[in-house]
């Protein structure tokens, strides 16, 4: 987004010291690298994607959550079968609010939770037979196009071979069956699960359907999960500007679209963290280039739409884009005129995800609010510092366990024209495969914190007294007990959409409502400042 005029905030070194002083020495040393006082002009290393310190009270979840919950959860026509004790399947059942249109074929398994509900006998004697039988039963009852298996912690430990079961059942049933070894303990956060999901989708699904979908231009939108209907908004834009959206990974998605997703002219990456792997692999194998887009924020949306039209070098499309922007910006401008005076100058902070903590700063900037501190829950250094650091990231033991696929060129389907197009555009300054990260966009002396702990958020609140704090459900009511509203940026507090122009309008209004609602002022009872009256009553004898 690159804000032009960056502000200089007060130096929070003292706050950082105070935060660290509470920690045991070793912990303080480890956390020091994750708390960085930002300087957008200087390149600084942001420690991230490292192990969470036990007991510190983290926001993070696990590998399974990243794989099943985030990446595969929103796909409506796969029976997503959790292999494990009941909890993992239960907790990831409908809780991420990925909205779905069941489409023409009417297949939608999202409201269902499928589990092998492993019992102690399965732990002792192995759960492979039960898994195979569960797949058989799922097929008999639901007749899905595909079934996928998600491993939970004990599965890896007892050595159930889900991939062999998947292959056997694929043969037996004649449908696609594939497994994800996404045991919760893998990696250091949800991020490992994203990677595992990307890998298996790429090897077992992408490329199964080589047909060419109708339309002049074909694209994929990667890393958009249709929380609160975000993807629905964007689908309309693509249709309007004359682009065929082959697949979205994975909001409002169908596995049939994934199968065909390699037959496109361009990949657009929304959430860089969770999906860049597929973008990279598709480029290597099929020659499809990718660009980073951002549809959070009105200006960012306009910029992204223009960038797409520039890629296709199509004047007609550009005219449509400009028309769309002009039309949609009217409501944006009108809303800003109303909302901005009530929000301007207020402080925000956000600790969430692997892109949202960056993208949402854009929206706050548009209503004149300043992001004083931000950080990701499960991002890597490239999400903070930009992809330029990719070559220099040291791969540690936790990441080494996550498979890095060797991808080769598909001689038959490789689009030779696309790399040529890419080279030509690059020569004109058009940026591909590029993400500059969060830090260059943040103000000087803003505090960038990776994998923030509960203690750190407490201290931040005391220090900055922000008007709003953005995080997730676990943090929501903690922060609100301070009398400060918390906006959930995972679930949107059951609102949305927040993507695109309409989404921006929704968000401005939402933040205005949250920071200006009367209830925060009504917290102290009216008698709080009248001690003498209370004392009189208390002393009197009745």
């Amino acid at each position, binding site marked *: 987004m690159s804000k032009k005029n960056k502000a200089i905030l007060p130096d929070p070194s003292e706050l950082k010291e105070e935060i660290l002083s509470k920690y045991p020495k070793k912990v303080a040393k480890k956390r020091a690298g994750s708390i960085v006082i930002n300087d957008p002009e200087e390149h600084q290393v942001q420690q991230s994607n490292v192990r969470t310190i036990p007991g510190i009270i983290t926001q993070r979840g696990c590998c399974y959550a990243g794989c099943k919950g985030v990446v595969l959860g929103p796909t409506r026509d796969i029976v997503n079968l959790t292999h494990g004790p009941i909890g993992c399947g239960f907790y990831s059942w409908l809780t991420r609010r990925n909205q779905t249109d069941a489409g023409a074929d009417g297949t939608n398994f999202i409201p269902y939770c499928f589990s092998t509900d492993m019992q102690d006998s399965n732990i002792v004697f192995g759960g492979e037979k039960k898994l195979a*039988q569960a797949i058989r039963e799922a097929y008999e009852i639901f007749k899905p196009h595909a079934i996928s298996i998600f491993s939970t912690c004990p599965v890896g430990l007892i050595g159930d071979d889900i991939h062999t079961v998947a292959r056997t059942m694929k043969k037996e049933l004649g449908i696609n069956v594939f497994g994800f070894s996404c045991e919760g303990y893998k990696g250091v956060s949800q991020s490992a699960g994203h990677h595992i999901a990307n890998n298996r989708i790429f090897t077992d699904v992408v490329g199964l359907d080589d047909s060419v979908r109708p339309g002049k231009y074909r694209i994929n939108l990667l890393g958009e999960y249709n929380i609160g209907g975000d993807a629905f908004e964007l689908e309309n834009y693509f249709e309007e500007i004359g682009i065929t959206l082959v697949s979205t990974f994975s909001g409002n998605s169908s596995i049939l679209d994934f199968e065909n997703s390699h037959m496109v002219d361009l990949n657009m990456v929304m959430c860089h963290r969770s999906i860049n792997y597929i973008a990279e692999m598709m480029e290597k194998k099929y020659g499809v280039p990718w660009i980073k887009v951002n549809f959070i924020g009105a200006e960012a949306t306009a910029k992204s739409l223009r960038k797409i039209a520039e890629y296709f070098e199509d004047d007609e499309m550009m005219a449509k884009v400009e028309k769309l922007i002009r039309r949609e910006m009217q409501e944006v401008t009108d809303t800003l005129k109303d909302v901005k005076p009530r929000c301007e100058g207020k402080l925000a902070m956000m600790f969430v995800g692997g892109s949202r903590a960056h993208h949402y700063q854009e929206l706050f900037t548009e209503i004149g609010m300043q992001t004083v501190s931000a950080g990701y829950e499960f991002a890597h250094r490239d999400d903070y510092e930009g992809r330029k650091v990719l070559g220099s990231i040291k791969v540690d033991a936790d990441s080494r366990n996550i498979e890095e696929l060797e991808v080769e060129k598909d001689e038959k389907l490789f689009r030779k024209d696309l790399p040529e197009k890419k080279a030509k555009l690059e020569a004109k300054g058009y940026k591909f495969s590029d993400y500059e990260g969060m830090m260059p966009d943040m103000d000087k002396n803003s505090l960038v914190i990776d994998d923030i702990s509960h203690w750190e958020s407490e201290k931040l609140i005391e220090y900055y007294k922000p008007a709003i704090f953005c995080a997730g459900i676990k943090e929501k009511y903690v922060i609100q007990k301070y009398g400060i509203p918390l906006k959930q940026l995972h679930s949107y507090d059951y609102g949305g959409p927040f993507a695109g122009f309409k989404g921006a309008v929704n968000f401005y209004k939402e933040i205005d409502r949250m920071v200006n609602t009367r209830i925060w002022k009504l917290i102290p009872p009216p008698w709080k400042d009248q001690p003498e009256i209370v004392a009189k009553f208390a002393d009197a004898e009745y």
Partner: protein
Amino acid sequence: MLLRHTPKEIKERSALTVNPAKTCQPIGAMYAALGIHGCLPHSHGSQGCCSYHRSTLTRHYKEPVMAATSSFTEGSSVFGGQANLLTAINNIFTIYEPDVIAIHSTCLSETIGDDLKQISEKAKEEGKVPLGKHVIYCNTPSYVGSHVTGYANMLKGIVDYFPESTGKKVDCLNLISGWVEPADMREVKRMAKMMGANTIIFPDTSDVLDAPQTGRYTMYPKGGTSISELIASGNSKASLGFGEWATKDAAIKLENKCKVPFEITDLPIGLCATDRFVQALSKLAEVTIPESITTERGRLVDVITDYQQYLYGKRVALWGDPDQLIPLVEFLLDLDMKPVYIVSGTPGKKMAAKLEKLLSEKVPEARYKNGELADMFLMHQWIKNEPVDLLIGNSYGKYISRDENIPFLRMGFPIMDRVGHSYFPTVGYMGGIRILEKILGLLMDKQDADSPETSFELVM
């Protein structure tokens, strides 16, 4: 249709659970531990477990739910989680200063065989547990039982650690609470006070998970059973556990450990279960049942007599936990309603036996199942074969309710889409009135919505 793939035809399943009517043990242990004052629950497993449990409890209560995790990695899963847990204990006491850390295991740490007793002793030996602070623990393998089992196991862990017997009994009754809402625990305390009984209740999540908005966050809210009370419970003259699945093991343990005799009753949900609870309380605490309690009972009976016509013969499908379902079924029968379908993922043969006793004569057509494969999918199929007038269960019922156009009363765990369950009790006579108010509201709203204009009633 949201559950459009649920067929009417029921096929036998032996391995696939669809739309479960239970979740796993650790979340119950976490909830129970929150009922100790100054306690931080700790999940010994992968980060996801702790995150999922905190999220689910938070969605249910809309309150801070604090807990820590051992953050297992692949390394700790291979070499054991001892180092992680020792680090966690040290960090938690240093940074968050709780009085108690209540550790529960997970399927991961259970499968690798981490010994919580040995690790917590080692933490003590290494000076990681400050003087006057406590580390308690329980085993909660997710592949055994359900969330209710986990709750029961944490209560056992509490009893294992705290109660002490001086050999001299005092005039005090332990109330061991089953898995109920903060409002229910508050209501039980109110009733005991009305009866003049001297009691210690544990766990007690009132003033923890229904804390007021004061503009000041405190990590350890004022509620929760205090450590001194938990220690003193060993000297009480008796224990009354309400909710057999949740409390019986702890009550037995306390009897064995400190010679505190016990009785178990159903959760006091509805008329007769509350009668038995009140009588047991009166007997064990050696107090008379005051007029004020009798009056409350009378009010409940009065509401039933006033509105019986709207309840008679109405078919109900229920899902949830045995401790709630059994007295609730009994109550529905007392209302002349017909609980026809009942499922619970929580195992235990005694549930079927109890339901058999309650239902065999009054509702011979009733179908019920608990344990493995007793899921909401099966219940929905039963409904598709012969519909019901009312659904009672947790929030996941809203999908069936909408698809089948059936009124839906939210009771149980989790309730993520409505307010009230944590503030207004469903136990005791007053709780009975609340259940009735809810049921009647739903049935009468439906009548109002469906009745032809000619017979639309003002007075009902």
